[in-house]
């Protein structure tokens, strides 16, 4: 699975959006289902699929799909 696919899968599982969602439109607090509980679940999913540990600032800064990609970049994840 590519990094992008893994990230999408984490969003599908944690936030409950369909696999066909417009991922770039997803935003914390705006997307139905993306509340603090789903956010915690998303953080757990991302940490286990990429085998990383996110810093506090990154956890609370990860407010959109694009932001998640950007943050993961800091941890050495490469999106082809």
């Amino acid at each position: 699975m590519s990094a992008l696919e893994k990230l999408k899968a984490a969003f599908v599982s944690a936030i409950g959006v369909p696999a066909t969602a417009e991922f770039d439109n997803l935003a914390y607090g705006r997307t139905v289902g993306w509340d603090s509980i789903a956010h915690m679940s998303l953080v757990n999913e991302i940490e286990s699929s990429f085998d990383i540990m996110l810093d506090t600032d990154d956890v609370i800064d990860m407010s959109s799909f694009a932001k998640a990609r950007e943050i993961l970049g800091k941890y050495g994840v490469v999106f082809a």
Partner: protein
Amino acid sequence: MIFNIDEPQRQKQIALTDAASNISWTYSQLCDEVQSRRDFLASRPGLVFHFCNNDLKSVAWYLACLEAGSPVALLSGQLNLGLRADLISVYKPDWIISDQQPENSYASTPHNGVWQCAEGPDALLNPALALLLSTSGSTGSPKLVRLTRENVTANASSIRDALGIEDDHFPVAHLPLHYSYGLSVLNSHLLAGARILLTNLGLMNVGLWDAVRHYKANSFSGVPYTYQMLRRLDLDKVNAPSLLIFTQAGGKLDPPHISHFHEQVTRRGGTFWVMYGQTEATARMTILPASELPRKLGSAGKAIPGGRLSIKEENGEVTSAANPTGELVYEGPNVMMGYAQAREDLSHGDELHGRLETGDRASLDDEGFVTILGRSKRDAKLFGLRVNLDELEGFVKKNGPAAAVSGGDRVVIFCEFGSEENLQSVRSELATRLRIHSSAFQFRRIDQLPTTLGGKIDYEQLRKLL
């Protein structure tokens, strides 16, 4: 006025700050905002449905209802239209306060966001009824708790005294106001003449921490799940050194988490308070003084001022044994009048007479400290929300035979039907319906649900499978 908000000495002090708009109201402004709304509501006494958010207007309308003597049901402003319509048809409120326009039988009023029922009121309201709260928050259940003004003010006063809330306390009110714990934070601090920072943001949102930092709020409240998240974030790393007072309620936080926060908060010179309550008791029943940690780790504390605890044994008698274990019974001026399931029930008077059988199993030590052991009723607590397992089961059973048991912080649902894929879709449907994250539900396929000799589902057997 309610909570002494019109007390002369505090009129120039700030009562409320809205983090989203950066607008603040002094107590004097708050009184004006409440008074004009009270006069408007008094033009037609009746039941108010208030779909509220954590903002200035919502607080003003809530207080205006209490002042006007109009019973108000505080409901989640996030409730979807279907659930709203169901509740409206069951309770037929005379007024609706909401960002969203209700169905046709409600007409707009000069107040933006306030609608009035076109037809006349059709059922009597008990004169003592002041506030209606849901025990399950956002699930849209029609079961509401009936509270009096005396319930609300007595509980606010007990909480203020037990926590020692002063006018320089400054909580960030992020728990929803339609949730009894969230509302109690507002009530007890208004009574103390303190300032309250209102926000709809959760602690996973950077905006919440920016607001806490900017306004230097010093008090924080959370349910177990809030503290689990805060543990993951790490309180020392969210850069909110102003926070010094921490309270926890809404379910049992594991003792290792309590120890962790007690130590971390003590290091910054603050205090950590474990509390216990139910919406049926307005909010609070017991508080563990921060100074009793770690000595009384695991306990939910002592009865709040004006309250009394006792234990009812299995045989139904109130026991006088030393360190008794059984169902916790609470007596105090904050005990509800009773439940309501529909409009007709709102005419009923006090059915409990100040005595609440909590449905929680507990033990009481010789110093009066209580330890909550678990629920004796068919309820589960998921992310701080109470969910009745029979109701949940009823929803799943539309698809086939199923039984639900509580497994700590999640519910396990055993089903005699469905493929893996099938159960996944029932799971997400259930999560959407109850507005609770799907990770709280685990579906398991079972060939045949175990039954008792009487033919009922044998939940004890099911629990052994967990």
